[in-house]
């Protein structure tokens, strides 16, 4: 019975993440439009797109890896979500997190991109491969400050579990973004790369790479990717909120916090042109790295 409830909780989490992620995507489109002095699509435009993609025929495939690529991506997103406690008080939305899950997350988060990259590779489209190399390079870039921030946090609070961090924040009453500011700054700067908005949208790069890794995927493949991207966005945002912003006691708080956080990469992206790959990589090894080091020093000293 307990297992059944757990599974039910997991499914509920996924659905929630899907809905929230998709809505956020739509809202971002709306915001982008408003910034550009347009009316923009309705906030639910992403749902329409998703459904349309789902209803399209998918008549071709380039082989098994190509078919499994989106599934890999989805697995990665869902598993990531499973390990992120959505709400503080546990219950249905706590799912599978365990002591030390941060390191696990770091790896499982890449798993999907690699699987997707394999799928993209099998299509034989050169644009896909170029996009993949860019994505992997950029990943090496932003993972460094991100991990530095996490390590600094681990040093400072002697825990490697996300729930551990939430507990720390509940006990002390302050958000970790205030008690370890440098780690937060490093993490947020890394987040810019993680969300792949401008200026770090070098993977898709519609005008030069024809959307890169996904260029051979349409219909249901694209639907899977789109929804997994939404889930992944939600999972990442929740992770940040859990780590730095004290988690959330109910859904409304969660939505406010995640949305506020989400605006950082979105708004930064709106006013930035695109970097070249090596510029993007080097960007993360500049100030973000510096803040990461500061964070570690700060953590070691205090």
């Amino acid at each position: 019975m307990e297992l059944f409830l757990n599974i039910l909780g997991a499914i509920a989490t996924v659905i929630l993440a899907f809905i929230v992620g998709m809505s956020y995507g739509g809202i971002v489109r709306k915001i982008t439009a408003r910034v550009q002095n347009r009316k923009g699509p309705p906030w639910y435009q992403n749902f329409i797109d998703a459904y349309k993609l789902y209803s399209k025929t998918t008549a071709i495939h380039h082989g098994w890896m190509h078919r499994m690529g989106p599934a890999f991506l989805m697995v990665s997103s869902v598993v990531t979500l499973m390990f992120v406690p959505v709400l503080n008080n546990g219950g249905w939305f706590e799912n599978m997190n365990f002591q030390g899950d941060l390191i696990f997350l770091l790896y499982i988060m890449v798993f999907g991109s690699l699987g997707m990259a394999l799928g993209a590779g099998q299509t034989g489209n050169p644009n896909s491969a170029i996009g993949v190399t860019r994505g992997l390079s950029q990943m090496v870039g932003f993972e460094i400050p991100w991990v530095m921030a996490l390590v600094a946090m681990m040093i400072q609070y002697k825990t490697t579990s996300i729930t551990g961090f939430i507990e720390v924040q509940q006990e002390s009453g302050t958000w970790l973004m205030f008690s370890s500011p440098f780690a937060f700054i490093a993490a947020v700067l890394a987040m810019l790369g993680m969300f792949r908005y401008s200026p770090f949208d070098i993977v898709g790069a519609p005008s030069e790479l024809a959307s890169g890794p996904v260029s051979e995927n349409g219909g249901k493949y694209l639907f899977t990717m789109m929804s997994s991207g939404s889930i992944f966005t939600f999972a990442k945002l929740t992770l940040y909120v859990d780590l730095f912003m004290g988690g959330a006691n109910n859904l409304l708080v969660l939505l406010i916090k995640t949305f506020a956080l989400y605006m950082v990469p979105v708004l930064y992206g709106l006013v930035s042109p695109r970097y070249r790959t090596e510029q993007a990589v080097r960007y993360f090894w500049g100030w973000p790295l510096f803040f990461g080091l500061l964070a570690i020093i700060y953590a070691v000293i205090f």
Partner: protein
Amino acid sequence: MSYDKDSHKIFDFIQNWARKHSIWVLAYGTGCGAIEIPPTMTSRYDAERLGVRGAATPRQADVLLITGYLTTKTLKRVIRVYEQMQDPKYVIGFGSCTINGGMYYDSYNTIKVLDKYLPVDVYINGCMPRPEAVLAGFAKLQQLIAEGKANGAQKYKENLEWYRENQKRISPHWVMPEYNW
């Protein structure tokens, strides 16, 4: 649309509604009409509010937008792109040139009537058609989709031999993969 033979009516309705409000456009932009696409998409006319949005590759696109004249040399490419698109798919002929050749009516190297080579769902008249006309064209397409009448792809499939014959007349060295879905 009546593609999925085993689908139900209400399902059709939802599908068509979604398709209608989410039109991903692959703009074939080498004709002079391509200049009208940016104003259509950007803030002045903002096609995105109708759900119209650019797509990067034929695999993702719903609509193939032929912006203006089509030379005999590029016809092959356009056909290839069209055949790579996934069902359901639509073609919009953009400008007079796609209807009857327009100002290139006597040119030796443009094709005159696009419909002989690709199943056009909606024509947008004008030389050039202004963005308002383009939006009107999209609205027409949406209407046709909602009614389930935008079935050019099916027509193409059914009359493939006829289309191929016309196409091969323009491109004598025809080396293209088979179209069989």
